[in-house]
């Protein structure tokens, strides 16, 4: 084993996960802060710990609910670690867990929660354009041309993906249909009871070509939380802790430059993250039993799966089919909770929780015998992240 493989693999574990009810955008009866508190309390109950045990807090995407306020409300005696992951979108969902692991490994804190809350009725939407009369800086290079929303910001990478690599739009459709299929077994899912047919996908309106309505994530209200502790402490709490095998973040060279001038344009931004992740985790893509891949837009999922090593540019059209992407029968079960498209858009933390659930064996679309579970977050944004979880069997 290399040095990197001794860094995290098996040394930190997820002890608890928690989610609120997931609501349609603007429909939460609770304010955002209450949603976050409820998610953290649910994660504490799941872990079997007193909430005052939490001494570290990690979030991302400029979450509005600060550790100081949460800590007080949870009755904590002390804050030992308070961390905000830079970057927009959901690129930090796995990075928040990585940062929590770093806090535990470095001795900074003993029990760290990674969390995210969104209440869009209270605070406004993502998928709307600028409301100002003037605009300057990087946004001035795009907004006056009607390029404002996240879908518009990232659609042209997918157009170019099709062009450069001969990827079929059918791969996007398969990703969407698989998510909706899984959501029909998941009572937590916002789209539970609302199945999607191939015909309805085809007939759906364009948001911006090449994205149909069903290629674009939801916007929701809710909150989610993941608690990590050292492996030793985790084994005191559970006979079957879910170990963090690896967690990494990063972005390619000049990933944040203005006006669509990233040197490598057709990428999920995961390319520099993935090799280090697998080396740290001590596994290969072939060892992964189930994948949660953040859907801001389905085109980015295709890039993420290719760059994550689950197929190649050449094999993508053949591998990324509905039959292959569904649990339990498919070869590459994907987004088994329904993901950001059909369960809930909790900026990817819901996907992290589903990855944990698969190793626990408690998914509503369980992959039989899953021991290695992969999740990636926020494709195409400047800094993205990914993590791999595993059971005790994997550690040997």
């Amino acid at each position: 084993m290399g040095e990197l493989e001794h860094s995290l693999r098996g040394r930190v574990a997820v002890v608890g996960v928690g989610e609120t009810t997931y609501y349609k955008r603007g429909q939460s009866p609770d304010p955002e802060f209450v949603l976050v508190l409820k998610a953290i309390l649910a994660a504490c109950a799941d872990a079997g710990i007193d909430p005052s045990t939490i001494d570290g807090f990690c979030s991302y995407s400029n979450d509005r609910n600060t550790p100081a306020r949460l800590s007080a409300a949870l009755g904590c005696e002390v804050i030992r670690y308070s961390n905000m992951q830079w970057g927009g979108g959901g690129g930090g969902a796995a990075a928040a867990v990585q940062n929590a692991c770093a806090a535990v490994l470095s001795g900074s804190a003993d029990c760290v929660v990674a969390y995210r809350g969104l209440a869009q009725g209270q605070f406004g939407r993502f998928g709307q354009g600028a409301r100002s009369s003037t605009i300057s800086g990087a946004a001035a290079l795009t907004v006056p041309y009607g390029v404002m929303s996240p879908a518009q910001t990232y659609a042209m990478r997918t157009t170019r993906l099709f062009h450069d690599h001969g990827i079929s739009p059918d791969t996007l459709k398969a990703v969407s249909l698989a998510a909706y299929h899984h959501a029909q077994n998941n009572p937590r899912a916002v789209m539970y009871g609302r199945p999607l047919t191939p015909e309805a996908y085809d007939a759906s309106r364009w948001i911006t070509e090449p994205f149909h309505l069903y290629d674009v994530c939801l916007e929701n209200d809710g909150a989610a939380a993941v608690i990590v502790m050292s492996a030793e402490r985790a084994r005191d709490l559970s006979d079957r802790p879910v170990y963090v095998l690896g967690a990494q973040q990063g972005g390619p060279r000049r990933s944040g430059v203005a006006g669509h001038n990233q040197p490598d344009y057709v990428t999920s931004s995961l390319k520099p993250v993935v090799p280090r992740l697998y080396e740290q985790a001590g596994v290969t893509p072939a060892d992964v039993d189930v994948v949660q891949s953040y859907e801001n837009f389905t085109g980015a999922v295709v890039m993420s799966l290719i760059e994550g090593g689950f197929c190649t540019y050449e094999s993508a059209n053949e591998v990324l089919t509905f039959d292959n992407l569904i649990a339990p029968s498919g070869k590459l079960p994907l987004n088994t909770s329904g993901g950001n498209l059909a369960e809930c858009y909790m900026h990817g933390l819901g996907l992290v929780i589903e990855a944990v659930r698969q190793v626990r064996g408690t998914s509503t679309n369980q992959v039989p015998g899953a021991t290695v579970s992969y999740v990636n977050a926020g494709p195409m944004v400047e800094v993205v992240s990914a993590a791999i979880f595993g059971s005790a069997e994997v550690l040997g």
Partner: protein
Amino acid sequence: MSDYVLPAGLPAPVPARDGLDRPYWEGTRRHELWVQRCPGCGTWQWGPEWNCHGCRSFAIGWEQVAPEGVLYSWQRPWHPVHGALADAVPYTVVLVELPHAGGIRMVGNLLGDPMQPFAIGDRVEAVFEDHDDSPTPFTLVQWRVVR
């Protein structure tokens, strides 16, 4: 007014107060295309930055380039995300590569019928779209396929 690709009412671009992008926006008013180029190492750079990302020099300069390029990618928005666009969809957004300027790229709209045939790789030329009636007059750089 009716000559604009997109209706008036979208946010008007104004040069940043820090002055970083002023040569670009002032150039568009003269119907000239100016982008950054490092006089030291020759790196072309877009959008504007405070130093050269090739050699780190702060002496990044500006150079006028031919207002033409190659269609690198595109999208066609149908969902209006701004009130001003409610009756303006669909419209075509293009990403134009400037091979003669180190392959830098620019975002703009494609002139003409939004459903017109075009393809990645098509040659395009810039059309300077003056918004003189804006409270803060400005000029956008739009693109037209060279047939």
